[in-house]
């Protein structure tokens, strides 16, 4: 990544070949009022739009590269590089919070 605005790569950023999967104790949940959240031990993250699209694809089967390609199609009006950076940043954040394993 050479773009100056790109997030700083860290050990928490996944590689394109990783297959992100929800960590033990984490589940994509929905309640009677159709509220969608990523449930984690002692906390939950509200999901909507892109964050929900990303988490739904963290199934341990799709690679990071595949997730990026699929989201770039869904958000075809957005800058593809920006979509990629946002996804990598979000996956790193979820990994840091213990919600994702990179397999």
């Amino acid at each position, binding site marked *: 990544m050479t773009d100056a605005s790109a997030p700083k790569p860290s050990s928490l950023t996944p590689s394109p070949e990783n297959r992100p999967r929800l*960590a033990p104790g984490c589940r994509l949940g929905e309640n009677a009022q159709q509220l969608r*959240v990523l449930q984690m*031990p*002692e906390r939950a993250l509200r999901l909507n739009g892109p964050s929900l699209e990303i988490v739904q694809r963290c199934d341990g089967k799709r690679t990071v590269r595949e997730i990026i390609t699929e989201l770039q199609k869904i958000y075809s009006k957005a800058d593809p590089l920006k979509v990629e950076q946002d996804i990598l940043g979000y996956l790193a954040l979820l990994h840091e919070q213990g919600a994702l394993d990179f397999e």
Partner: protein
Amino acid sequence: MNAPAAGPLALIAELTHRCPLHCVYCSNPKELTLRGRELPTSAWVRVLSEAAELGVMQADFTGGEPLARPDLVEIIRAARGAGLYASLITSGLPLDEKRLEEIVGAGLDHLQLSFQGAEEASAAEFSGTHSHAQKLRVAEWVKRHRIGLTLNFVVHRGNLHQLEEMIALAERIGPQRVEFAHVQYYGWAFANRERLLPTREQLDRSLEILKKAEERLRGRIRVEFVVPDYYSKFPKACMGGWGRKVMLIAPGGDAMPCHAANVLPGMTFENVQARTLRQIWEESEAFCKFRGEEWMQEPCRSCDRRAVDFGGCRCQALLLAQDAAATDPVCSLSPKRGIVDAIVAEANAAPVAIASKAEWIYRPNPASSSVE
């Protein structure tokens, strides 16, 4: 009538008050529910289904020791069947590999294992039971399953000097999450407060150690810390606000806004065997009493933080200021903060001595006829 804006998101299910441990800081009320008055399985199954309809997403099974219920597997299965995230808060006694397998098979998402110290001797002093070795075994068994594991170390004046050993122990076990939860001063802990409240120096040192551990373990183990609120500038947002996010069901079926609410005078609780969860949540006097802002006194009433901490804890206001509707006295803006300052000053003047076992007030087991 203080109607809620939404349904609760979490249900705390206190399945029983029976417990093999006798912790000197137990959060259970001083009047424990007897085994014969506990809700039957069918009532819990119905409660969990009503909770899901009301919008609840997570059920925390606690006690006492929830493993004391022979029907725990059925109850967890019912929670998952209703679509709830199921979390078990346990001491790990009595448990063997086979029963754990059944519990995981029923759909358990997360297990929180409590620790009373870094090694057997001190853990036994604070819990009145030898349980440390069993906890280490349970942690190993849990790790063979794909469920979340949190280690919860209860910390206080008497064991903060072991903090580094506790962190090392957590690192060896390797859970997803480790919590260092400072004792909160209600019930049994209020009775033992003098021997549990740390000094400022102990607290500062512990925060330094924890900050380093958090940094070092980032991405591997999530480190969290609950500070003793007597040292805080502002009160905690107790239960995320009264009747706002959480409903607690006591072993006998009384629905309560928090663990300790039965210390509040004149408060009556409705029972899940008489009314639905929705009726209790929306209409019961107990849930409406301190919901919203109308009950607030000054300085809360006009304070910018009233939607941040909701006036703090009602039970603490009662215990320290003898007025359940007062601003939580730990708040630096409270006219009663002097009460807390005096307690803290006393804690800092006294030497950090290890209390002798005879000085502790141990919580009994309601199932047994005598206290160990």
